[in-house]
Every structure is written in structure tokens, then in C-alpha cells.
């Protein structure tokens, strides 16, 4: 770059700095402007797509064409082996089979049972192992603790028994609950009282307290949540459809668990309170 170009660069930098000096801080703009829904959606999609593409590239990086060539070689080797086995080694195998059959036939009935016994024992062992495995899996689901049957579902103790209801910069609240047996919906409000944007997962866990222990109620839909951004100073209302959970609306204590960044928040409520508030609202009207 010659002297003239250096001078022009310096001037361009200075001019751009001057222009940008009139731009308010990001937080201030965020307070006055809220992006439109289509913009948020398309950017969310862009970010998701980019993450999918990068994951795919990561996989491709590990599966190079060289691995493909190796796999092809192994396949050719296996095919050749199989052909050799079924052409040259065929007579040997037949002979071996025949002698085994003859040997078995010459044995008395009791001995034949004994000969078959190892196979049966193997099957039994396999069955036992599979039962043990499924038992271990069911224990894993409850982190090694015993599950309880609640409304026809087996529920397991929650990983976190104690969690805060609010953080320094985030509050959660179960509010404006609408309880209609046919359309049971709860409203969860998440408020960002801090000065920086936060990320939250729009999938919430419902937990019930049974004998002083919190148990997680499995959702029937099993949909995965998405991480969303909540701007500084903003609050968001999230609808929780309770028809996805098997619950009995009795006086049990419930807890709605929200994931905000690295933190987990839990807001407690009972449907008894909800009924009371709904009835108070109705009588006031």
C-alpha cells in the first residue's frame, strides 16, 4: 500500500468512526426497537441451518474418501472369503455336519437332551442378561433411585431437588392460569431484569412433589425445545399445555422447571391456588 492509499484508508476510518459515533449503544436500541416476528423467525432458521450444516461438515470431515476405500477393500475380502468357503471348504463342512448328525443319532435319548442343553442354557442366560439390562435401564431413568406410579405413569425423582425461583437478572412466575378441564393451559412468565440478553429453552419440565421429593412428570409429546433469546428488560409469556401431562389436578404441589443459560429455575404452584384465583376472578366479575 503506497502513501496515498494509506492516507485514504486513514481518512475512511476516521469518517466511519465519526458516523458510528452517533449510533447509540446496543442495549438502548434494543429497548426502542423490537424485531418483527418474520425477521426473528428467518434469523432463527438461519442460525439453526448453519448449525445443521456445520454438524454435517463435521461428520464429513471424519468420514474421508480414504475410509470409503478401506471399507470397499474389506467388503471385497469378505466376499472372496465367502466364495472360497462355499466352494473349496464345502465338502469338509458337509462331512463335519454328517458326522455330527450320526454321532447324535447314536446317542441315547437322555444324552441327546444333554447335548441340546448348552444351547438352552445359553438362551436362558441371554434372557436373564436382557432382563437385567432392562432393569438397569429403568434404574438409570431414575438416576438409580426408585420410581413411583403417579396417574398411571412411573415418575422418577428429579435430578435437582432444590432450585431457585429467581436469579439476579431473571424471574419466573406462573401467572394468569386458565383452568378449563378441556383446555388446561398455564401461563409462565419469564422476565429478563438484567442489562444483557439471555437465552432460554422453550421446553419446560413439570414436576410433582410426592412425600417431600420432586418427581419429573414425563410429557407425552416428547418434542424437543429450542433456545430462544430474551432481550434485556423484556418479559415473555409462554403457554404450557397441561394436556401433554398425566396429572390429577389435586392439591399436590407442582413445580415448573425452566432452563435459562446454564441455570435452572423452578417456580412452585398448586392447582388449589389456581382454582381459588379463578373462582375469585369469576365472583368479582
Amino acid at each position, binding site marked *: 500500500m503506497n502513501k496515498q492509499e494509506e492516507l485514504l484508508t486513514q481518512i475512511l476510518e476516521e469518517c*466511519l468512526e465519526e458516523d458510528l459515533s452517533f449510533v*447509540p449503544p446496543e442495549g438502548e436500541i434494543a429497548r426502542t426497537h423490537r*424485531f418483527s416476528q418474520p425477521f426473528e423467525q428467518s434469523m432463527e432458521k438461519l442460525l439453526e*441451518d*448453519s448449525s445443521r450444516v*456445520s454438524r454435517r461438515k*463435521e461428520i464429513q470431515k471424519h468420514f474421508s474418501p480414504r475410509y470409503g476405500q478401506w471399507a470397499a477393500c474389506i467388503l471385497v475380502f469378505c466376499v472372496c472369503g465367502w466364495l472360497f468357503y462355499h466352494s473349496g471348504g464345502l465338502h469338509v463342512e458337509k462331512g463335519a455336519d454328517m458326522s455330527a448328525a450320526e454321532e447324535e443319532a447314536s446317542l441315547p435319548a437322555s444324552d441327546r437332551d444333554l447335548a441340546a442343553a448348552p444351547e438352552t442354557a445359553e438362551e436362558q442366560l441371554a434372557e436373564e442378561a436382557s432382563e437385567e439390562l432392562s432393569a438397569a435401564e429403568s434404574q438409570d431413568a431414575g438416576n438409580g433411585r426408585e420410581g413411583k406410579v403417579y396417574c398411571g405413569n412411573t415418575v422418577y425423582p428429579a435430578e435437582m431437588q432444590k432450585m431457585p425461583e429467581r436469579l439476579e437478572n431473571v424471574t419466573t412466575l406462573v401467572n394468569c392460569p386458565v383452568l378449563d378441564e378441556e383446555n388446561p393451559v398455564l401461563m409462565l412468565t419469564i422476565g429478563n431484569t438484567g442489562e444483557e440478553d439471555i437465552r432460554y429453552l422453550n421446553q419446560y419440565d413439570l414436576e410433582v412433589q410426592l412425600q417431600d421429593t420432586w418427581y419429573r412428570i414425563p410429557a407425552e409429546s416428547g418434542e424437543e425445545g429450542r433456545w430462544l433469546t430474551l432481550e434485556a428488560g423484556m418479559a415473555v409469556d409462554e403457554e404450557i399445555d397441561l394436556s401433554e401431562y398425566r396429572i390429577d389436578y389435586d392439591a399436590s404441589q407442582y413445580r415448573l422447571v425452566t432452563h435459562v443459560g446454564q441455570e435452572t429455575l423452578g417456580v412452585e404452584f398448586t392447582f388449589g391456588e389456581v382454582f381459588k384465583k379463578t373462582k375469585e376472578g369469576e365472583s368479582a366479575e
Partner: protein
Amino acid sequence: MFLFLALLDSPEEQEKFAEVYNHYRHFMWYVANQKLQDEHLAEDAVQEAFLALTRHLDQVEDLYSPRTKKYLATIVRSKAVDILRKLKPEEELSEYLTGDDGQADILEQYLIQENYNHLVSCILELEDSYRVIFEYKYMYQMGDAEIGDILGISAKNVNVRYFRARKKLQKMIQKEVGRFE
């Protein structure tokens, strides 16, 4: 869109992109809105800018440096210029007709320290469509092909715009210097 995103090579790049989006989207919207005076068009400019950024994220080294902020401002301004160009094609036509009067390009003669203040005021008055070309070329050291990729035009057209921008600037400086002599 998927093809553009294919250039975000690794999870680190993807994370960097998300971080840029979270940290600068309001700033970029504000810069675009200053130019377009329309909230929705400004959002379109921001979106276009982020799409272009997926292909040129390598220019972003330190996320929070003033250079990154300037780079994003340049991209979003160039996208705003594009939108204006599409909205008012007559302006585009006039741009191509003006400044091509056969006058020799003697800008280098004016690029001297003595003219510093004149140069600053001329650059501030120069249309954004020309200014962004200078910014890409000198501040971010980008080649014609790279600039063309961001602007959605051919490298040849970038070169044409660059020379028109030089002539325009030269005329402005001539006028400015002449006023004070």
C-alpha cells in the same frame, strides 16, 4: 440459503456467527434504518448482511473489536444501498451516467496530507454506494471478486464502480480545494 451457510465450516464458526448476531443485530439495524428510514426495509438489510457474512466471516477476528463493528457497518450499509437501488432504479441509471466524462483520474495528486481536512469532508459527503467500495478495498483489503460476492455483482462491475468512485471523489476534492484557494 443452504449453499451460503455451507461456508460456515465448523461449530466454532457457527458459534462465532451466532455471537455476532446476538451482539450486533440491533446496531446493524440502526445503521440500516438511518439510511433507509424504514424499519422493515432495515430488517431486510440486516438479514441480507448476515447472509453475506456467512461467506466472509474470516474478516471477523476479534468479535468485540472496533474493526469488527466497522466491518459490519460497511456490510449493512452496502446492503441498504442495494435495497435503495432496487427501490429507485432511476438513481441507479443516473449513477451510471454521471462521472463518465472522459476526465483523467488524477485522484492521487489530491491525496496529500495538506488536503486532509478537505478529504475528510469530501468522504463524508460521498454517496454510500461509492464509499463502501473504498471501505471494502482499503480498510478491509478485499479483492474485487470478494467485494463482488458481497454486493452480488461481478468483479468487473466492482472495478467499474471503483473507478467511478475515484472520479467522483476527485471532482469533489477539486471543487472543495478550489473553494478555499
